[in-house]
């Protein structure tokens, strides 16, 4: 098992969401936005100061702060 997290994904790379270490409402929110275990996700680009990062997931573009992306684990980078 890899312990990689979403914030390590470089622009252009693809990976699969493995799990979310959030609880309740925040977890639900991210699930609804498409960050579901098994979903393909790609990093698009970082903001001017390097944070947050825009991710492509299920046809939408969602920006996450690095601190939050660190709590989403990924596999198969």
């Amino acid at each position, binding site marked *: 098992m890899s312990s990689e997290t979403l914030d390590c994904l470089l622009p252009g790379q693809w990976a699969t969401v493995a799990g979310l270490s*959030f609880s*309740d*409402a*925040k*977890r*639900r*929110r*991210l*699930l*609804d*936005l*498409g960050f*579901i*275990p*098994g*979903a393909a996700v790609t990093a*698009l*680009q*970082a*903001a*001017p*100061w*390097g*944070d*947050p990062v*825009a991710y492509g997931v*299920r*046809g*939408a*573009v*969602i*920006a*996450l*702060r690095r*601190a*939050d992306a660190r709590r989403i684990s990924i596999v198969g980078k």
Partner: protein
Amino acid sequence: MSEASYVIALAGNPNVGKSTVFNALTHLHQHTGNWPGKTVAVAQGGYPYQGETYTVVDLPGTYSLFADSVEEEIARDFLCSGQADVTLVVADATCLERNLNLLLQIMDQTHPVVLCVNLLDEAARKGITLDLTALENALGIPVVGAAARDGEGLDHLKETIRQAAHHPLPPPPRQVELPDLEGLSQQERQEAAVSAIMARSEELAALAAKVPADAHRADRRLDRLLTSRSTGLLVMLGLLGLVFWLTIAGANVPSQLLSEALGSLQEPLRNLLLGWGLPREVCAALCDGIYRTAAWVVSVMLPPMAIFFPLFTLLEDAGYLPRVAFNLDRCFQWAGAHGRQSLTMCMGFGCNACGVMGCRIIDSPRERLIAILTNSFVPCNGRLPTLIALFTIFFAFGGGLGTSLLTAVLLLGAIVAAVGMTLLISRLLSRTVLRGVPSSFALELPPYRRPRVGQVIVRSVLDRTLFVLARAVMVAAPAGLVIWLTANVTVGGESLLVHLAAFFDPLGKLMGLDGMILLAFLLGFPANEIVIPILLMGYLSTGSLTDYQDLTHLRQLLVANGWTWQTALSAVVFTLFHFPCGTTCATIRRETGSLRWTLLAVALPTAVGILLCMALHLLLTAVG
């Protein structure tokens, strides 16, 4: 038989043109913006169709029905309450998969449901082909395609809604069969349920939409220009500077024409009133007090607003504001603030009261308070003309292209300083009275839309400009009367205005200003727009607002009253940072429900302004 009426619930993801559909159906021009989560309160409107009345309830845009935000709670409660005869779900044709997720959740809760696939024009532009018949067959509910901004598909939509209300189809078969949840934890169940719905959305989207691989290429290319490390910030400053320059350069001539036209009406108005037999003093109060203040506000405010608001709305419509939030978020993280605060700050540029109300989109109470308390640190549209006038006459005098360009650059500098102060105070608050952990947030960067220039101009002039202007005039008129009275009621040989100015003079001098300037700010509490007219009236002590033909007059008058560029600089600082206007204070009181927080919201910018002015004055005096 009484006229039948139906209730239609309007639901959808944020930013799918739901409000546009709402406006197109009801002709009630609720303001629509291109950012996620704008509609926080529930708007409602109605339309007649074939002799029946349809009431449309515009629910907040949500990604799902089950997360615990205020918006979702409102949408869920309404949909589950059974108050709606038909639920209309609006989906974005360019992002069908994610949108179907909400549709499936709604279909699970209520019946009948009609799906409106909106933004067909945008989808066509991206080369996305849709098969709505296949989608309709697979879902078992009516599906209508639309391009609501052009009014396309709306007749079909109204007819479909009518049929759904009269003869609902039998409930469709369940779209999602949940897997066996036996023996799973709460979290695993939730995940399984969401995954099952998502999997079905994916299937349906694959069936209904053919998306070419490069459909979103233009958007990504624009994103690289507008949000990348190398160009993002430069382009942002450039765009803001351009908006300011167009406002300054374009407002000049119309302002002057309006001022002359309204000024020339004053004497005929006085004669008319005198002709009615009104006493001379009353006529003077009405003409020189109320009418002149209102006329000044209109001629100075209307042209810049009529240019600034449409330009701002164009950027908003095109989908640029979420990119601003994206660009600036690192700073707001540093400040311990919520990511959405940059959006409420942007609203504050238009009007601080609107910005404070907009803070409802922040669901963490701590971060919402920070956003409310710091909103008036950015200058609203009522303060921009004052800043423009001060910069033009003291730092960029001369006329021509150079003047308007330099003024725009200076104004840009003032805005950057205001944003910097917003961040600093936010950080201060999040380290002291409002300590806490920043909450996580996910910001959707919606697809860019080609803004409808004609519609934007009409809508922003009608909805925003005239609204804000009407408010300013309504406030300015009675304030004009009060000012006229203080300038004309004499105590011990001097007018009340002069006495008051003398009282504030020591503090004013310490700040590099004078008593009359401070008094003008105080009397301008109802609306920031009237600060300069009050000041002029005070200096002239003619008992009424002076005729204000152009900025040269203003400069002469200010210089004659001891103004130097240092005075102007202090006045700029105090214009940026002082107590919020009356409307904003009332809004803060209502939104926080607390007098204590309202007082803090007044005290913070005032203290910052006074201290900065004093420091500046000390520094400049020391340097010589």
